[in-house]
Each structure stands twice: as structure tokens, then as C-alpha cells.
């Protein structure tokens, strides 16, 4: 440890463009994580609100689905945006997590947390659960691949029928708990990451995150629960459709 060798880039490289240096930096990747998180978060809220129409009955929900499909530009625009966001979100998460793991090769024997929350400490696990869930969810209710009685276009039937299957609702509930943890930390955390902080309003960040998370999670949980408790029932039309398929 003689003279301080300064092996690392003491100064930014002149030739590095701002985008690449931004994406290479920890804060840059955090911001990518935050902004893509914001997109995904926004989608989750809209998705939940849209799905509430299930309580208006099959006609309303299926009409909503038709309406969405009538605007392919919007639909695909959103899908591309979501896919890109998810990919970038995962990329940022993976690269940051790897950096974080590498930053402490040897851990502590004993460790007591003071300020971190269960949600903050489990982001990477809730994230993985959500990723798996999204794949399952797409196969289950969008593509119908793993659905026992998928009827293209009959969203109402697909949902109700889908949640009648043994393990599926259970997985949904678990995923929604993961979503709750992930979203609660993610929502206020993304504000911190993009620099939205003010001594007077910082406490509102938590309140907002808790409120919106509770809203989304309760809304989403209501669907499988409503099916399992029999509040939502598959109607004859759907049964007929199923029969027709046989």
C-alpha cells in the first residue's frame, strides 16, 4: 500500500458517450430500474382497474376485451413497451444485483438490521416470483396454454374457470403477496432514485406507496377469492362454449 495507485477511471473517459456512461453507472441503471418500474407499476394499476369490470358480468368484461383488441396499434404499442420495460427492468436488476453481491465477497457472521424492511430485503426474491408469475400468467390467461378450458375471447369464462383449478388460485395469491412487497418498496424507492425527495413530503411517499399497493393487491386478490367463494360463477354460455369445443 505504498503510493495511492489510482488504477480506476479517476476522470470520465472523454470518448465515452453520455448514454453509455449513464447506463454503465450504478445510478444510471438504478434510474432505468425506476423508470421501467414506473411503467410496469402504471400498467399493474390500470390492469387491475380494468379487470374490476369482471364484477359487472361477462358481457361487460368481454366487451372491454373486444374494445382493447379493436385498437391493435395501442395494444401492441403497450405490449412492446411493457416487454421492453420488463426486459430492461430485469437487466438492471440482474446487473445491479450482481454488482451488489460482488461488492461484499465475505459476509458478516452476525448482522442486525435497523432500518431496512422485509420488503426491501426481499426485492430480488419477490422480483423472481413475479417474473415466473408473469410467464405463468401469460400462459394461463393470455395464451391459454396451461389453462384447462381456454376459450379465446371469453375472458370472463377464462378467468373464472382458471381460478377453479386447484393450484392456480393459490399461486395467484402468493404472487400477489410478492407483488405487494415488491410494489411497496418499489414505488417509494423509485421516487428516491429519481431524486424526488423533500423533507416535508417524504413521509407521503410511504403513504402513497402503501395506499396504491394495498389497492392493487386487494383488487387483484379479490378475483380468485371471489371465484373460490362462489361470488363469481361460470355462466351457461361459457359452459356451452366448452361443450362446443368438445
Amino acid at each position, binding site marked *: *500500500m*505504498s*503510493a*495511492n495507485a*489510482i488504477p480506476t477511471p*479517476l*476522470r470520465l473517459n472523454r470518448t465515452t458517450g453520455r448514454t453509455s456512461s449513464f447506463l454503465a453507472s450504478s445510478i444510471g441503471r438504478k434510474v432505468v430500474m425506476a423508470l421501467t418500474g414506473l411503467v410496469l407499476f402504471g400498467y399493474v394499476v390500470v390492469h387491475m382497474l380494468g379487470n374490476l369490470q369482471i364484477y359487472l358480468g361477462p358481457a361487460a368484461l368481454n366487451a372491454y376485451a373486444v374494445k382493447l383488441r379493436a385498437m391493435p396499434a395501442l395494444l401492441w404499442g403497450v405490449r412492446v413497451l411493457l416487454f421492453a420495460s420488463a426486459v430492461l427492468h430485469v437487466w438492471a436488476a440482474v446487473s445491479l444485483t450482481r454488482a451488489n453481491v460482488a461488492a461484499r465477497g465475505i459476509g458478516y457472521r452476525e448482522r442486525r438490521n435497523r432500518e431496512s424492511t422485509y420488503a426491501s430485503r426481499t426485492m430480488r426474491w419477490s422480483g423472481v416470483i413475479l417474473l415466473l408469475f408473469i410467464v405463468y400468467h401469460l400462459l394461463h390467461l393470455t395464451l391459454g396454454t396451461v389453462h384447462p378450458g381456454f376459450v379465446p375471447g371469453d375472458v370472463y369464462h377464462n378467468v373464472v374457470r382458471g381460478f377453479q383449478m386447484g393450484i392456480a388460485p393459490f399461486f395467484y395469491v402468493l404472487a400477489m403477496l410478492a407483488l405487494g412487497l415488491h410494489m411497496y418498496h418499489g414505488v417509494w424507492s423509485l421516487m428516491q432514485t429519481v431524486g424526488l425527495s423533500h423533507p416535508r413530503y417524504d413521509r407521503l411517499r410511504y403513504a402513497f406507496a402503501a395506499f396504491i399497493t394495498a389497492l392493487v393487491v386487494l383488487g387483484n386478490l379479490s378475483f380468485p377469492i371471489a371465484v373460490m367463494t362462489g361470488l363469481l360463477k361460470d355462466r351457461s354460455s361459457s359452459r356451452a362454449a366448452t361443450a362446443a369445443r368438445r
Partner: protein
Amino acid sequence: MELRSNVPEGPIERKWEKHRFEMKLVNPANKRKHTILMVGSGLAGASAAASLAELGYNVKCYCYQDSPRRAHSIAAQGGINAAKNYQNDGDSVFRLFYDTVKGGDYRSREGNVYRLAELSVEIIDQCVAQGVPFAREYGGLLANRSFGGAQVSRTFYARGQTGQQLLLGAYQALERQIGLGKVEMFSRHEMLDLVLVDGRARGIVTRDMVTGEIESHAGDAVVLGTGGYGNVFYLATYAKGANATAIWRAYKKGAAFANPCFTQIHPTCIPVTGEHQSKLTLMSESLRNDGRIWVPKKARDPRPPNQIPEEDRDYYLERQYPSFGNLVPRDVASRAAKRVADEGRGVGPGGFGVYLDFADAIKRLGANVIGEKYGNLFEMYERITAENPYQVPMRIYPAIHYTMGGLWVDYNLMSTVPGLHVIGEANFSDHGANRLGASALMQGLADGYFVMPYTVGHYLASNKIEKLATDHSAFRQAEAAVADRVRSLLGIGGQRSVDSFHRELGRIMWEYCGMARNQGGLETALEKIPALREQFWREAKVPGENEELNQSLEKAGRVADFLELAELICLDALERRESCGGHFREEFQTPDGEARRDDENFCHVAAWEYAGQGQKPIRHVEPLSFEYVHPSQRSYK
């Protein structure tokens, strides 16, 4: 040895300006051909290293800490003086100069002090520009407070962390130069010897404290900014690592040591709690503005303070010094505390403490007001003692806090060894026999930012300095001597820990050469110290080896040097047969117990020259003359 102060001729307010013109300059293109070794990275060292590098010199900077940001300048709380007169209360460069000379009890050099006062103004500008977050008024301009009994408000401050903020400013300037490659930084390196070639300081030998490697470094000039030597007392407000090794090695290579007995004792420290105590913590002097100091009238009164009625209390400062009361200067307050403790009236465990009571102030102003003023200090006190000063009086006791003595330097801050410059607390120059509050930071930065860049250049330009590499025999010899010494320390093979020697040395020094000294005591100390030193070299136990991080070895080397320096301090105290500032000889006091200076015989700097192992050092004298501030007796009655 000749002590030539080299203070320029002419009226005092023109000296520095004239001198700056007369000094030789190094051509800008030639600056990069010179290497300057800066030992120490506190306020003085960091500011000098950064400023010299800015000019284009190559600088190598050394510190024993793991980072230059940790030097003990960081612990200064109160503030930094500057004659800005922003408060319109009658301050001026001359007044700051006057106060400093008087506060130093007429044992400092007028020319140097005037320059210090002059430069104080520029320091503030420099620090503001660097981003030091000084306290501000609501209008955004700089705030001031009055400090240490000064009659004008000239102290600039950053909460209670002024030293920290000033040091970080200098450290950041230094890091900038490190990043630019102009300063090479050697952290965790301890200077263990000075290397002279043809009588000039040309290099140092260091030990890498991680690998144990003993390395030579050559340069064209050497600057020491290695701080004070108060840790010779073991218990002090200094950082644990603070040491005298660099200046002591320089002394043994021919640099005169001036006024070693001028040590400062701070009256408001938290008292010792037991044998395990490793250091003392200072409580800001500002507490004396509202706290009342007292002890029980009866010796060894066992009652807790709240049960001692008013008539059984002795507010001894208010009684003895009715006009200044609790605000008498540091040295006076400290000695008074010692007197009552010696009478058996001290309080707390061991009886080395006096009460600093806020009950009256709380009654008068309310706990809220007191909390606003001193809340953080009260908290710190409670953290350390587990006592709540809102409810029970604080206990305080004096402790060693600063050393005014140090290596002798001339007006250019160069020692008696050509090319060896000494700055900050490590030199002796500006504070005389007593330093005023908020003046240490000022001196460190004045030396580093504004004196070194000129006078080092002058030295380099006016001397022909040959190129030199570390394979020169002088380096080989110095390295061998250092390695030898390390080996001997590791080889003592005794049974007693280094700390226990240090503690014992501290007790001797505190007892016989502390707040009050007398001939008999000093003579006793002069017998005990060499005996302890011999015992150290026979019985100390230094575990481990050189080729590793070995904190015991580091300590041992420092304590070995303290054991020599302590003797010089006592010798100087013995020879200075007068009382002045922090040096109080019981034989020389006025009938009412105040310090009695002897201007006829001791209006001089005593500079000691090393005369060889086992020889009595030679005392040289630099007479002081006072043309502008005429000596008078201090009185605080």
C-alpha cells in the same frame, strides 16, 4: 548554533510585503523539477502540500493515519480567528496581533505574529472559496462569535466542528492535486528519520506501517507539519497516534527545539474515571459563559452535589477573580482547579474534578435556552459519563491540550537545519507561552497556504541544490539506523507493556511538569525520567515483527521518543526561572498567586541543541524585543 530570526527590517505592517518582494522566485518551468517532502497532512500539512502542488512543485505527502482527512486538526471545535472586522466592533489586524502577543505573555516574535494576523484575513476568503460551510447570518453573510474572552467578535465557525471543516477543505484541495498527479500521497507511513546531505535536509526515511518496509525518500526541501507533542503526558486531548517522533528525529539531526516547556492546559475536560482511561475529551470552553464552577468548602465532602447547600459551596473563581469570575483565561482557571483538588476538595471518583453547575443558568434562562446553546455538548457529556447535566452539575478537570513549544524556526519557518521547514503546531513560533482560543487553526492554515509557498521557493531559488537519489550513502546510513532501532525495540524482550510505560511517564510529567512546576519537582522528574527510560529499554515488551501492521511497535517507537523529549521539557522548565503563560513556576508568583514574568532575564526564546547521546543539550537564546506591544502584567482580578 546561531539563531537568526531573519525578520525583515522596517515597520511591522510592511515587513511581510517587503519580504515577499525580496524573496527569490523559482521560474515556473523549473518548479516541476523540484520535489518537496511534506510530512503530516493536518491543516498546515494538507494546505501546504496542496498549495505547493498548485504552484507546480512535485510534492510527496506523508501521514501515519489511513487517510490525510483524519489528522487531529479535525477535532478542533471552537473556531478560527480572523481580523475581518465584519462586526464593526473595532477589530483590526493590529488588534489581533496585539491580543496574540499579549495572550502569549510576551514570549513570541512580534514579526511572525503580525504576519499571522495579516494572513488571517486571507484564510477566511480561501476557505469560503473552497466550500467550508461557515455559520451564516440570515442575510447570507458570515457570522462571528466572541471566543476565549476576546473583546471583539472575530471568530468564524462551522457549528462545533470548525477544525473538521477547515481540514476537509484543505484535504479536498490536496486530493485534487493527488488526482492530478502532482502530489503523491503516502498514508500509513511514519517518518522515522530525517536525512541530511551536506548539512541540508534532503530526505526522510519512513516505515510503511502495513508492510513494515523501511523506505527512503529524497527531495529538495522537507517540511514538517506533524503537530504537537502533548501526548508526552499520556492523558491529553490529543489523538492517540499523535507523536513527537518526526520533530524529535529532526532535533537529533540538528534542528533546535524551542521552548519545549510551553504546554497548554485546557480547564474544561471530562475528568479521568479510572486506570483504563486512554484519552481525555474536551468540552468547549463556551460552557464557562453560563456554568458556575465550584467545589465543596469542606475537604472530601461525601454528599452528592445537589445536597450540598449554598453556604457549603466555594465558587472559588468568582471569589478569587471577582471581575472575570468563571471566564478567567485557561491557564488561570486550570491552576485554580488544581489548587482546590490539592486541598482535597476535588469531586468525583479520585477527587480530580470540579463542578461546572448550570442550575442557576437553567433557573434564570430556562432549560430550553440552555439546551439551545449547549444541547450537543450536554449530550456528548451524557454519552461519556451517563450523567445528565440538566440535573446534576458537570464535572470537569484540566487536561493537556496544546503545545506552544516546538522546533525553532525563523521568519521563513525554516529550522536551524537548512531546507527543513516546520509549520503548524510542530513549530514554536506564534503563540509565545500561551495560545489564545481559535488561534491554532489560524496559524496552521497561515503557515500552509500563505507562508510555505513563498519561503520554500525562496529557499530553493537561493541555494544550489544538487540532484540526489536515494542510493546516496546518507540514506543507506539512515535506513540502517532506523532498521536497527526497530530491531532493538522488538528485541527488548521484557515483560511490561509499552502502554504501562507511557502511562507512568504521563504521571511523572503531570505531577512534576504539569499545571504548576517547581525546582524540586522538576529535579525529581529529571531523575525519574531517565530511570524510566532505562527500564523501558530493559523491560518493555514489544510483540510481533516488523514486517506487518504492528501497532505495538508503532507505539513503542513513539514512547521511546517521548521518554527522551520529556527530559528536555523538564530541563527547559527548570531553566526558565520565571512564570509565563502556561509555564507556571511556583517560586515565581505574585503575592496573590499569579504568574510573575521575569522580562529582564527571560524575555527570550530558549532553543535547545542536541549535543549527542547522554550529553546535556545546549541551551541557546534568541532575545525577543517588543517594539509595538509593550509587556505588562496580566490581571484578571
